[in-house]
């Protein structure tokens, strides 16, 4: 049997392979040879074979069949075998492998070997990848070695102890005695690893931390010696003595000085000394300075020292080395809250970093810039940030735009400035603006009453330029719908009033409806805007025409709106002016906040931050108030239903509901389309609805009869849809046991305020007689607070020529449907 090919020979051969396939072939051939060699239990060449295996493993080929061989190598007497064996173990075996534990005995023996380099191998392997069991078994050996006078072993034992503690924290105590005089060592290796060990112990245990606080003077002394001592060739790096040790000591001091006045004071001088004396021309010096700054900022240092630290960071910002600038920005970001004024002094340098070429630096500079914006510097800062917004990469635009909006909201020096800033963002980064900005901006604009003419004019002009950026288009549509009258009247004070006709405005809005660039949401906005203008413009006929055209749009959303607006023209024209009136000032609830309901006079109105889409029709807030007042009651369920979007007449049915209430002059708030808004809709018992659509999960829940009267029986069944525990999907099954059909059947439901409900379209409006068929309809109920489900249902139908209506409570929901 010829000797197996040598390692370097194999490497050379494999490297001659010209294709992946050729390489694979070579590898497979060699692996086969190695496998048979392993089977023969060949001691001589095991080391060679494992070494080759490790090479092939690095190339990405499987090598697990060599795991046991590594163990055999480790157990060998030969040093070469052990060296390769331990390396193989570290590369092929980790604690996830079962055979891992088989190493324990070998390692134990080798920890007690007569040759320190063998002991070193064992310590290294244990310290890199020892499992918890192994660590438990061998901790005693490590502890022994930690007390040896052999500095070669002592330094390794210290790091091995660190690993043991990380794996088995309870064992930390046993290493305590051995730490007694670790810092008295002269050997830098031992010193360094001891500091690492002490750091680990202090970070893990408050008791250890207090115990080791007494080391502060000694650590200070060591650090001082390092700085003051002359040139030491063995540890010198670019004129600095043992920077690695300095950094580790600084880090340990940080942990010891944190939240301890005495310790902090004891290290004050040395920190100042390091901060002022360290050479900054090379990275190594700056690394030490950086660690010093981190320590100063974290302990209870006096203000002078803190200012010194921040100034170091300020100087870092001016450094040519981008790495230094990067760490400076990172640190400043951390300290900007606590040392705001000190950081402010470096504001202009920070702002300059916005122009840096490195993406990470730019991002940090942006975050820091926003953190530094205040009432005094808002104008200047915003100029820089808007310029940044113009030219930055797309990945920044959304965050930057949000930041600008937030800052503007907090510190805007004037309403005009605020609107201008918003305009700037919308026109330059309009497509990156977050969805929730749209309602926020709308609210802001509404509340800036004196700026309405100016705002609508600027937005209109922006639309003429570009209709591709949806958030801009949406805000603009909304404004034109609201303030179109101001636009055509040429009333602007802030700038030269624009001359535009009603037809031109309608052209623009209609253009949005047909443009490929407009999303469905945008189309909704523009249709509603057009509708609103029917009470502000005189060209009502044109508007009527548009609205009726969209009554047959394939976009369900648009169709529904158009149908409803159509109905408004036809049947409820007397209500139209009131309905489409100018929006009142909105009470602000949350800036970017999620849904929050404001209760005013029993009316619920969502915070503008909530809805993705604005109320399709200007919320007739005042009228809704009246309505609710009339019906009163706080804890009243919310009625929600969607109408079957089949025919135009279905709009009529919708409003018929309100006719039932026999209100005089009360408005018929348009029904909410399937859109998450808070549109006061069917105000049965006077609640607005907050539809929220989610899928429901319910399984194995028994069905129930919800209603059974006059021959009409309505059963509820529960289904599993998506696994969302907060949502119940209920299907109603309406059956009719009388001899005549029930036609014009409409099922409506209301739930308490903490719930949200959505009704999908019913299967039909006719419940056939004599139980010949059922009408089904799906209800989805969102119940985030897991409250007991209650429902009020309203049924209307025509039976034998008469109209029937009934209201009923459903309280017998099975617990599984809402728990």
């Amino acid at each position, binding site marked *: 049997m010829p000797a197996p090919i040598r390692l370097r020979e194999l490497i050379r051969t494999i490297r001659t392979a010209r294709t992946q396939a050729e390489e694979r072939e070579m590898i497979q051939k060699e692996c086969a040879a190695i496998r048979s060699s392993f089977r023969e239990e060949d001691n001589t060449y095991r080391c060679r074979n494992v070494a080759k295996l490790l090479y092939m493993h690095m190339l990405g080929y499987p090598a697990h069949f060599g795991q046991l061989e590594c163990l055999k190598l480790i157990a060998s007497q030969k040093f070469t075998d052990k060296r*390769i064996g331990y390396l193989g173990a570290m590369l092929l075996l980790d604690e996830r492998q079962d055979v891992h534990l088989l190493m324990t005995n070998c390692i134990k023996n080798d920890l007690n070997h007569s040759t320190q*380099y063998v002991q070193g191998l064992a310590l290294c392997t244990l310290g890199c990848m020892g499992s918890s069991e192994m660590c438990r078994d061998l901790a005693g050996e490590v502890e022994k070695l930690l007390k040896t006078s052999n500095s070669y072993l002592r330094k390794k034992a210290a790091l091995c102890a660190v690993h043991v503690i990380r794996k088995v924290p309870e064992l930390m105590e046993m290493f305590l005695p051995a730490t007694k005089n670790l810092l008295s060592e002269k050997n830098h290796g031992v010193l360094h690893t001891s500091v690492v060990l002490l750091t680990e112990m202090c970070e893990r245990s408050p008791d250890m931390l207090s115990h080791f606080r007494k080391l502060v003077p000694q650590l200070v002394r060591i650090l001082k010696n390092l700085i003051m001592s002359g040139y030491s060739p063995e540890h010198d790096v670019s004129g600095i003595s043992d920077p690695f040790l300095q950094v580790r000591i600084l880090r340990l001091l940080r942990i010891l000085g944190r939240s301890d006045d005495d310790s902090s004071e004891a290290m004050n001088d040395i920190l100042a000394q390091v901060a002022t004396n360290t050479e900054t021309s090379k990275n190594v010096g700056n*690394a030490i300075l950086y660690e010093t700054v981190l320590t100063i900022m974290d302990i209870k240092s006096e203000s002078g020292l803190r200012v010194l630290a921040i100034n170091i960071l300020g100087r870092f910002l001016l450094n040519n080395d981008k*790495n230094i600038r990067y760490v400076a920005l990172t640190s400043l970001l951390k300290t900007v809250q606590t040392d705001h004024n000190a950081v402010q002094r470096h504001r202009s340098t920070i702002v300059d970093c916005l122009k840096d070429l490195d993406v990470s630096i730019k991002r940090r500079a942006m975050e820091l810039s926003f953190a530094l914006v205040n009432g005094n510097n808002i104008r200047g800062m915003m100029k820089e940030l808007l310029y940044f917004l113009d030219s930055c990469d797309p990945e920044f635009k959304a965050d930057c735009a949000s930041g600008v909006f937030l800052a503007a909201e907090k510190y805007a020096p004037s309403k005009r400035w605020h609107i201008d800033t918003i305009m700037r963002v919308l026109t330059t980064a309009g497509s990156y603006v977050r969805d929730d900005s749209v309602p926020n901006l709308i609210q802001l604009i509404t509340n800036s009453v004196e700026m309405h003419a100016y705002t609508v004019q600027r937005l209109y002009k922006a639309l003429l330029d570009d209709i591709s950026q949806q958030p801009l288009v949406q805000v603009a549509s909304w404004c034109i719908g609201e303030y179109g009258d101001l636009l055509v009247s040429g009333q602007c004070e802030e700038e030269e009033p624009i001359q535009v006709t009603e037809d031109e405005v309608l052209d623009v809005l209609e253009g949005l409806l047909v443009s490929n660039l407009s999303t469905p949401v945008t189309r909704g906005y523009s249709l509603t805007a057009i509708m609103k203008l029917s009470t502000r413009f005189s060209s009502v006929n044109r508007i009527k025409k548009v609205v009726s055209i969209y009554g047959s749009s394939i976009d369900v959303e648009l169709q529904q709106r158009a149908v409803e607006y159509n109905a408004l023209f036809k049947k409820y024209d007397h209500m139209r002016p009131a309905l489409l009136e100018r929006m009142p000032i909105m009470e602000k609830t949350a800036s970017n906040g999620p849904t929050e309901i404001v209760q005013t006079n029993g009316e619920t109105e969502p915070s503008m931050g909530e809805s993705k889409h604005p109320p399709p029709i200007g919320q007739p807030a005042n009228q809704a108030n009246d309505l609710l007042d009339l019906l009163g009651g706080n804890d009243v369920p919310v009625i929600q239903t969607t109408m079957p979007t089949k025919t135009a007449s279905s709009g009529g049915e919708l409003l018929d509901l309100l006719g039932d209430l026999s209100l005089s002059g009360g408005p018929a708030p348009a029904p909410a389309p399937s859109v998450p808004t808070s549109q006061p809709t069917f105000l049965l018992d006077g609640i607005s609805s907050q539809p929220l659509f989610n899928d429901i999960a319910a399984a194995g829940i028994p069905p129930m009869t919800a209603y059974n009267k006059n021959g009409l029986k309505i059963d509820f069944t529960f289904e599993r849809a998506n696994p969302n525990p907060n949502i119940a999907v209920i299907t109603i099954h309406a059956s009719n046991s009388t001899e005549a059909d029930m036609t014009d059947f409409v099922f409506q439901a209301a739930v308490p305020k903490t719930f949200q409900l959505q009704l999908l379209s019913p299967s039909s409006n006719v419940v056939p007689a004599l139980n010949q068929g059922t009408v089904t309809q799906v209800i989805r109920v969102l119940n985030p607070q897991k409250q007991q489900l209650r429902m009020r249902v309203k049924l209307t139908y025509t039976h034998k020529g008469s109209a029937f209506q009934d209201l009923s409570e459903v309280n017998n929901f099975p617990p599984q449907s809402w728990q």
Partner: protein
Amino acid sequence: LKTMRFMLLFSRQGKLRLQKWYTATAERDKKKMVRDLMQIVLARKPKMCSFLEWRDLKIVYKRYASLYFCCAVEEQDNELITLEVIHRFVELLDKYFGSVCELDIIFNFEKAYFILDEFLMGGEIQDTSKKSVLKAIEQSDLLQEVSCIQY
């Protein structure tokens, strides 16, 4: 709480030359991480800084001739000193091999590992003296049995 999670050496062509993992990771995950990271680092332009955020880690990398030295450290570490750690390792290799180049590390990968394992343990420096580390390697080399020198 580990400071250094792993260190990788790879060429501009995306060939792995050394991988040292200081946390137990599945083979499959290691391969994916290496692939992902190599792609990201190799795409970096010269003007960019040596640090980047990746997953929950900070990556510190530096190119020496045709080799990228890449360390993954915990978020709170001092990146600047990590650059010095990398540099020290390169110096050790350089001293040992005499003007080290990528080929040295390809043909003597196991020696590169030996040096690394004498310099770092669990991601931490064992000895800050270049001389001391090199001496230990030298002495270990001498211990290798004559019969096994050319494995």
